[in-house]
């Protein structure tokens, strides 16, 4: 497509004429495409985006699809008193000494509160919860996904049947629709979200691989600042616009993944 092209649109001009189509001259483009590139920063610079006491989101499911490189950097930078929103806290096994994914940060005692759907494989999270060192709010996984999506999509909440008649109902508004009871689940947002993609272009368009997608796409919509750790960084235009999982506009900073194994 050329520069300074003048193109005729047929547009309905509600404001001035009613139910009449009028042709308009519109959109002169100054460049071939979007040339908004996002800053490529180091993992340390990404970790430094977190301020003491922030709420952060980190993608991944049992460490699959977590931003390993950035997680290591957050351990180094070591901001404390954070609130963490995640699917689960990955693995921390006292017997085998296996610690991975988000578990690395839990072990580093950086969280005052954790929202997660599952902490069963992380004995350290359980220990911190039982000792009262860390507050843990357990949220059904589907509700957690919707709460984060709602946060990103400007919804005031969603009604879910999940948790009705269980402990999850406590303190929540129950709303009956068509004679069925639902819980009102409120949105979740964060100061910074760290997501992990298989491929990203320099504008920030992201493509995830396999089940490593999990919570990453919703988290990318629900934070003030979004850092994407990408395994493969490609030029703008190399990703088919039909195959993009997370639109570039959600991504503020890009980190090249260096740690590839959990």
């Amino acid at each position: 497509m050329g520069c300074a092209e003048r193109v005729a649109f047929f547009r309905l001009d509600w404001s001035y004429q009613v139910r009449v189509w009028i042709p308009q001259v519109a959109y002169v483009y100054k460049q071939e495409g979007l040339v908004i590139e996002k800053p490529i920063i180091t993992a340390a610079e990404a970790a430094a985006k977190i301020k003491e006491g922030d709420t952060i989101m980190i993608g991944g499911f049992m460490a699959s699809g977590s931003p390993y490189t950035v997680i290591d950097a957050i351990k180094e930078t070591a901001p404390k008193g954070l609130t963490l929103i995640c699917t689960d806290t990955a693995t921390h096994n006292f017997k085998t000494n296996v610690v991975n994914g988000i578990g690395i940060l839990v072990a580093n005692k950086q969280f005052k509160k954790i929202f997660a759907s599952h902490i069963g494989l992380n004995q350290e999270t359980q220990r911190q919860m039982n000792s009262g060192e860390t507050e843990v709010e357990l949220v059904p996984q589907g509700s957690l996904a919707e709460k984060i999506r709602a946060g990103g999509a400007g919804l005031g909440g969603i009604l879910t049947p999940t948790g009705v008649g269980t402990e999850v109902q406590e303190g929540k508004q129950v709303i009956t629709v068509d004679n069925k009871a639902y819980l009102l689940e409120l949105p979740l947002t964060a100061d910074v979200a760290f997501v992990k993609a298989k491929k990203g272009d320099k504008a920030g368009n992201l493509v995830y691989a396999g089940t490593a997608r999990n919570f990453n796409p919703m988290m990318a919509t629900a934070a003030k600042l979004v850092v994407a750790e990408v395994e493969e960084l490609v030029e703008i235009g190399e990703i088919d616009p039909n195959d993009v999982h997370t639109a570039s506009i959600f991504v503020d900073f890009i980190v090249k993944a260096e740690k590839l194994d959990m």
Partner: protein
Amino acid sequence: MEYVANKENIAKRIARMFHNGDVVNLGIGLPTLVGNYVPEGITIILQSENGMMGLGPAPEAGQENYDVVNAGGSPVSVLTGGCFFDSATSFGIIRGGHVDYTVLGVLEVDQMGNLANYKVPGKMVPGMGGAMDLVSGARVVIASTLHFEPSGASRMKRHCTLPLTAAREVNFVVTDLGLFEVVGDRFHLREVFAPYTAEFIKEKTDADIVIDTDCRVVEL
């Protein structure tokens, strides 16, 4: 009559409940065994709540790819025709009733269809993961469990005492003694698995059991 725990029989019977093309989510633990007994000629589609349809076997050793894992976090493969999606979409599939069967393990299940399988206060608080959504959302909920605890107590109850995973959502309970349907706040015994008898089940189970006139004895 002596009771011998038999997980395989539970798995065998549940595997025969499926129809061609059913979308099935198999929970962690005993339910996983069900995949071994799906009859010839029946193809089920396994959903994994962490974001895939068409769950396939684990790759051979050395071929593991941690970008494709099951709900337990272990590497699996995707079968031809399967696909991946994010967790919001995955639980939309579950909550929206697009999963035909969910098979779950049990700590307690009661005759109102209440299920407890995620928490033992003070002992085990792993979090509910996707279990609450699965039990609330799947079209048919099958609770799978050995009939008795090691202590000899029945896992089928009048009233659950543990924190519930979901209230009144269980449709079927399959134990190593029989197949039960939850109807009108009672367990209706639909099938007895040989060599057990309806009388044995009724006597040993701490719940109200209705023995249907068409209750069959099944050899597994």
